[in-house]
């Protein structure tokens, strides 16, 4: 009697699948009637722990689309096309990314998919290649020879980190020892390898290293140990921007006197407020202000960088991060390739992208690179700024040449990549 009852409930429940499934497809999407539209897929985390790497990027991409649409849209073959962004929350999960990739390609018929990188990209890589879909990643170590449509367009982390250390080697000869602390994930490890290589090339000895996990609440012990080793320079590598904030504050509170070099220094006005102008003087990192005069110059390629930054910070106060503009910067380059190709067809646009020389990177002209590391030239590598804190303001002290460094010392970096298990095909 009881089992019959449950079995019937079971039937009633599963019978609803069909109804539910058909409802799935009914989610309305914004359609611009009577206009040509090109769709762009955004497949990154909008919820959960990794949302900080996705959601601010979606905001940026939407502002970029608005700006492009306000200017009449993308021109292709004499027609104007409105840009429409379609997002799918992959929750930084391989399964959700698989489902989302299929939806974006087959259902929405997007022309490019923007992704964050690492595990979701690993999961959909082969599928995307089979379907000849252009995918951009913010993590170049995702690139491999078997994925010809996967590009690292705007972000070439961790390679550009060598420029600031290189600058130290040439300009601060009294620096002899270094200490490294960062979080133990792919971002941190690949960055750790890069700093190790850059320090080695610059003749600086690494005397202390500390890897921490994500559950760290209190950074005091991590910093105590580092400072105890008395290094001339400390780096937090590519620790998450929030960690950089807290680690730097700890270094200040615990009386550190040396130099700090780092990948990012997001919202440095906050860090200035927590420490002091004196303490922060000379801090080196890799990301200029987007409204920096150099960013508006003729050598860089990010249309309306200042206007983009202004709209963004007005609409989403406090949400500005590096990824806010990096997804959009990738689209900027894709747009150029579309203009060249005269079509939105992904494989053709991909060929046009590869044909660009120089590659119009946000920080200036770049070239395709990556063969020696990944077996394929799919990363846009060129110059990258070295930024220094001077009197409480970010100043670009040099446009470092990442490519030249790689040509000269690439083998040192490959050695350290291998030692830390960072994927390369070399």
């Amino acid at each position, binding site marked *: 009697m*009881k*089992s*019959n*009852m*449950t*079995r*019937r*409930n*079971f*039937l*009633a*429940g*599963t*019978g*609803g*699948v*069909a109804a*539910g*499934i*058909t*409802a*799935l*497809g009914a*989610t*309305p999407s914004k359609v611009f009637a009577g206009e040509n539209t090109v769709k762009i897929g955004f497949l990154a985390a*909008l*919820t*959960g722990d990794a*949302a900080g790497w996705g*959601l601010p990027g*979606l905001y940026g991409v939407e502002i970029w689309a608005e700006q492009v649409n306000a200017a009449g849209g993308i021109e292709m073959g004499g027609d104007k096309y409105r840009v429409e962004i379609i*997002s*799918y*929350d992959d929750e*930084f*999960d*391989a*399964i959700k990314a*698989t*489902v*989302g990739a*299929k*939806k974006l390609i*087959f*259902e929405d018929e997007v022309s490019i998919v923007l992704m964050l990188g*690492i*595990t979701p990209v*690993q*999961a959909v*890589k*082969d599928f995307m290649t089979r379907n000849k879909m252009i995918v951009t990643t913010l993590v170049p170590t995702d690139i491999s020879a078997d994925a010809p449509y996967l590009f690292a367009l705007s972000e070439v982390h961790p390679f550009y980190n060598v420029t600031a250390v290189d600058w130290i080697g040439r300009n601060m000869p009294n620096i002899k020892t270094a200490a490294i602390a960062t979080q133990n*994930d*792919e971002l941190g490890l690949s960055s750790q390898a890069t700093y190790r290589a850059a320090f080695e090339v610059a003749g600086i000895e690494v005397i202390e290293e500390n890897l921490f996990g994500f559950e760290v609440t209190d950074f005091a012990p991590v910093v105590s140990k580092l400072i105890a080793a008395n290094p001339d320079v400390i780096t937090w590598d590519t620790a998450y921007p929030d960690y950089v904030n807290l680690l730097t504050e700890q270094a200040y509170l615990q009386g550190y006197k040396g130099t700090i070099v780092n990948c990012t220094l997001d919202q440095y006005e906050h860090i200035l407020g927590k420490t002091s102008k004196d303490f922060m003087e000379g801090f080196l990192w890799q990301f200029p202000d987007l409204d920096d005069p150099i960013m508006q110059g003729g050598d860089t390629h990010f249309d309306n960088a200042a206007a983009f930054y202004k709209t963004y910070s007005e609409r989403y106060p406090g949400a500005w991060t590096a990824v806010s503009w990096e997804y959009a910067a990738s689209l900027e380059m894709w747009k150029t390739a579309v203009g060249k190709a005269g079509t939105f067809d992904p494989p053709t646009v991909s060929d046009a992208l590869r044909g660009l020389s120089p590659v119009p990177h946000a920080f200036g002209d770049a070239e395709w690179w990556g063969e020696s590391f990944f077996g394929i030239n799919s990363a846009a590598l060129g110059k990258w700024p070295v930024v220094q804190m001077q009197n409480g303001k970010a100043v670009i002290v040099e446009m470092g040449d990442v490519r030249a460094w790689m040509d000269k010392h690439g083998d040192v970096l490959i050695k350290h990549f291998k030692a830390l*298990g960072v*994927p390369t095909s070399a």
Partner: protein
Amino acid sequence: MFSRAGRNSAGIAVLLAVVCILPFIVRPYQLDFLIFMFINIILVVSYRLIAITGEFSLSHAVIMGVGGYASALLTLHLPISAWISMPLGGVAAALIAYILSFPLFRMKGFYFLIGSFAAAEAIRLCWVQFINPFGGYRGLRQIPVLEIDLGDFLYIDLGAPVPYYFFALIVGLIFLVIMYRIEHSRFGFVFHAVHHKDMLAQSVGVNARRYRTIAFVTGGFFAGIAGAMVAHYITAINPGLFGLKQMLFILVWVLVGGLGSFAGPILGVVVLSIIDESIRGLNELRPAFYGLILIITMLFLPDGLVSLPDKVMQGVNWLRKREDGDAPNRE
């Protein structure tokens, strides 16, 4: 009685027909959604097998991962077909579950819950730490798919959605039947018994711990195969797929669906997955809506979604009775 049985078989036939036609009418990504739903059904039903013995574990997602990793590594490094490696993945998962059962079943209740979480998390962190062979944080990629290769006679690439859908459907149905039979066998009877009356079961000579271990290992076997099914379909696997979040969802599906009956967890997976997918348009607000549904279900249907028809019938009966009661007064 006869007519009810008849109705049931008719219902099953209709359901089977619908499920067989579905892949040809839904869109490709919805097909993937259904495939993962079938895999999750195996997962929750195998979880229930353990839970009916009275112990809730938080290691099921990682045990599932053990199966996935084992099967993936076997096919990647040895000339073994996925047809062989998948059951071996299940065996590996069962083996790990067996090893874990020694320390874990010394604990009970909430100690067991958190103890199983710690043990599982330690295994998961090993996948992150040991890049060789597990691929670290990034995991493994290019895991071979299943194939049916009978030479010129027949070749089916099970990596494609429609064939894999039917594969997942058939495997899922077979497993459901097996697990249903286990629950209604002598073993299943004892499983229930050790839950309700630990001491009594002991006193009539039943070794509660032994039966819990059997349930834990059996559930682990099915979970391991579910993990292998994920690995050989998306052809990639990483530690992030088996974290606390995935485990929490298994628990939520089982409890919101209703632990009390075989159909409950299945209902939980189906209903909650469909709701979750259909509110994707909410973007970053989606988890709140989901949370609200969890709360409302638990407050109004503490026995789970599966008790909804009963509740509705009670309500209807109550109304009817009241009307009947009112009727004489009106006359």
